[in-house]
């Protein structure tokens, strides 16, 4: 088969009514601008980390929103927080804040204060 430089993702299915959306809802409270996301993927397209590795910020926040939190903590550590995603977002989603909040929800840090 010819290599076109991309692959078709395996179909995934899960039951949204059984998903644990508590953290996802917390995230929407903390970053209200995320409600405006249309999932265009502009953030992932410009991502600095993606230029080096297969980190996909759109996939990360989309999966988070659906309550599928497995492995996201490790994935999020690849982000360098440079903020290009926030600048390109056509809907004005504060992605840096979104990422920091996802990190905090997944691995609560021992903040000094």
């Amino acid at each position, binding site marked *: 088969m010819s290599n076109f430089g991309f692959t078709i993702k395996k179909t995934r299915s899960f039951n949204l009514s059984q998903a644990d959306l508590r953290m996802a809802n917390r995230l929407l409270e903390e970053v209200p*601008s995320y409600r405006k996301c249309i999932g265009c993927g502009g953030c992932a397209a*410009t991502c*600095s*980390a993606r*230029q*080096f*590795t297969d*980190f996909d910020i759109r996939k990360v926040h989309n999966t988070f929103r659906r309550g599928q939190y497995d492995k996201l903590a490790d994935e999020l*550590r*690849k982000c*360098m*927080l*440079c*903020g*290009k995603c926030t*600048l*390109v977002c056509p809907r*004005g989603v*504060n992605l*840096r*804040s979104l990422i*920091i909040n996802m*990190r905090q929800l997944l*691995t*609560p*840090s*021992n*903040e*000094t*204060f």
Partner: protein
Amino acid sequence: MANFHPFVVPFVLGTIGLFVICGYKYVRWIKQFDRKQQALIRKNMFSTKILPAIWEMFCECLLHLRISKKNWRLGYMHRSIAFGWFLLIVVGAIESRIGIKGPFHFWCAIFYRFFHHNIPANGTEMFFTQLMDLILLYVLSGIFLAMLKKIHSRILGMKRTTKHTIMDTTVKISLWAIFPLRLLSESVTARLYANGGFLTQSIGDLFSRPVAEFLELPLWSLYSIALCVFFLMMPFTRYMHIFTEVFLIYFRKLGLRDSVKMTGYTKYELSACSRCGMCIDRCPLYNTLDINDVQSVYLLRNLRNLEHHQDILAAGKNCLMCHQCAEDCPVNIDLMSIRRISRDKGDTDMADNYRYLDPVKGFNAIGRVAYFGGCMTQLTPTISESMKTIFDAAGVKYWHLDGDRAICCGRPLMQQGFNKQAADLRRKITELIGSCNATALVTSCPICYNTFKHEYNLTIPVYHHTEYIDSLIKSGKLSVKQSDTTFTFHDPCDLGRGCGIYDQPRAVLKAVGQLKKVSAEKENSVCCGMNLGNTVLSLEQQTKLRDASLKVLTEPNPDVVVTACPMCKKAFRHGTEVNVKDIAEVVAEEIKK
């Protein structure tokens, strides 16, 4: 017991309490210094660095020259209270040493007139009596201004004063009471014994003798109690800055700086804050968005008391880190570092997160200049293209380090308190730059520039492109023609206040066109609102900040608003009809072919 009266007891207790509490606190904080800070103290404790430290203590703690430079009325107010009180103590001590008969106790200096009833006998005594009255008048003028400032702060050139806690207000009232009480008690005694100077004698003569006799003891007692209240509350309130600033100046001169964590040095800084509120006046969040509870003065207060944890976190987050307050702080507290300390996320994320950067290998760039555009320049490719045009025109061999793949310099992580991860990134970039053997590093992004300059230990010189273009023009390598286009220049926060680069961009712009002055420039330039330091502002709020900044920049009707930061350029571009360009683009257009 001679030269003693029960009314001095509150004063004596207050003084002893003050020194015990302050001494305990200072020793505890010194124990909390980290290793590096302790080593610096041991190394420099008795070096010649003490002399400039003493000079700065005199200029700042007593004369308040830095405040005076920014606002002379405020400077006069602080100087009259601090230096005046200092003189009252010193001159009073000398005067009482000369005049007191019998055993001398330290309270005799403070309550001298009460214990020394003789009419000034000779010239020396007369001189001291009049001098003490003059100094008292000087202090009172400062207290009067302080009261005026509370009623209407604009008289003293401040938009608003700090909202103080009840403790702070109580201790302030006791401070304000001390000097009028001293005046009244000395006046009453002067009425009875005719031992006053021009001020106390004339006020004392207004009283009738029985009234004076009746008031004398209560007034002296009140004076003593006011001193006691002030001294005992001082270590727990903002007036702790009076002594702490002295120590802070000493430690700073020894070379101590903030670490990424809270250390004893930070505790000294927190207590050296007098809560004067000068950080509020020019904060863009206050001026444009009316947010008035996140400014450094409030953050420092909450950090010092270590209460209101949620407030600390919330106030810590909501800051542009535009360096304006750090620029305005009369005590030169490193407010940006403290802001970062308040955001410290701890060490939970210890793993090396950026393993994917490992295969990044530099390219052999011997004899070339490494050009680091930075992440944001990837989104404004005209800037990097213009830089390449300039490099080519000047005959400089360059290597675009992050042309297709950009590594972040680590500043955004650092600003959000992910210090461990930021250090990881710094290590990767240092390796990358070290492996390429370039002669110098030129960056287009002030954010990266500030980081390279202050957080990295690179072996090659680092330039921001404004500096580099300026040196190219001055050395004659790059010849540009001067056009009639008029410019206004926006000083990016990290380049101006962050690194002190103000003259180079102006020199460049004057070489290629006509530069117009704007009302708030250089260290007062208004942040574009997009600073990476803030993650909680909404898009609407950022837009308001941008408009406030643009209002200043477009006021003189320039043809082009010029900036030197890809972030500012992005922010301004859609906010105005006027053309917005980076300084590199402007220069690239005016190169002589």
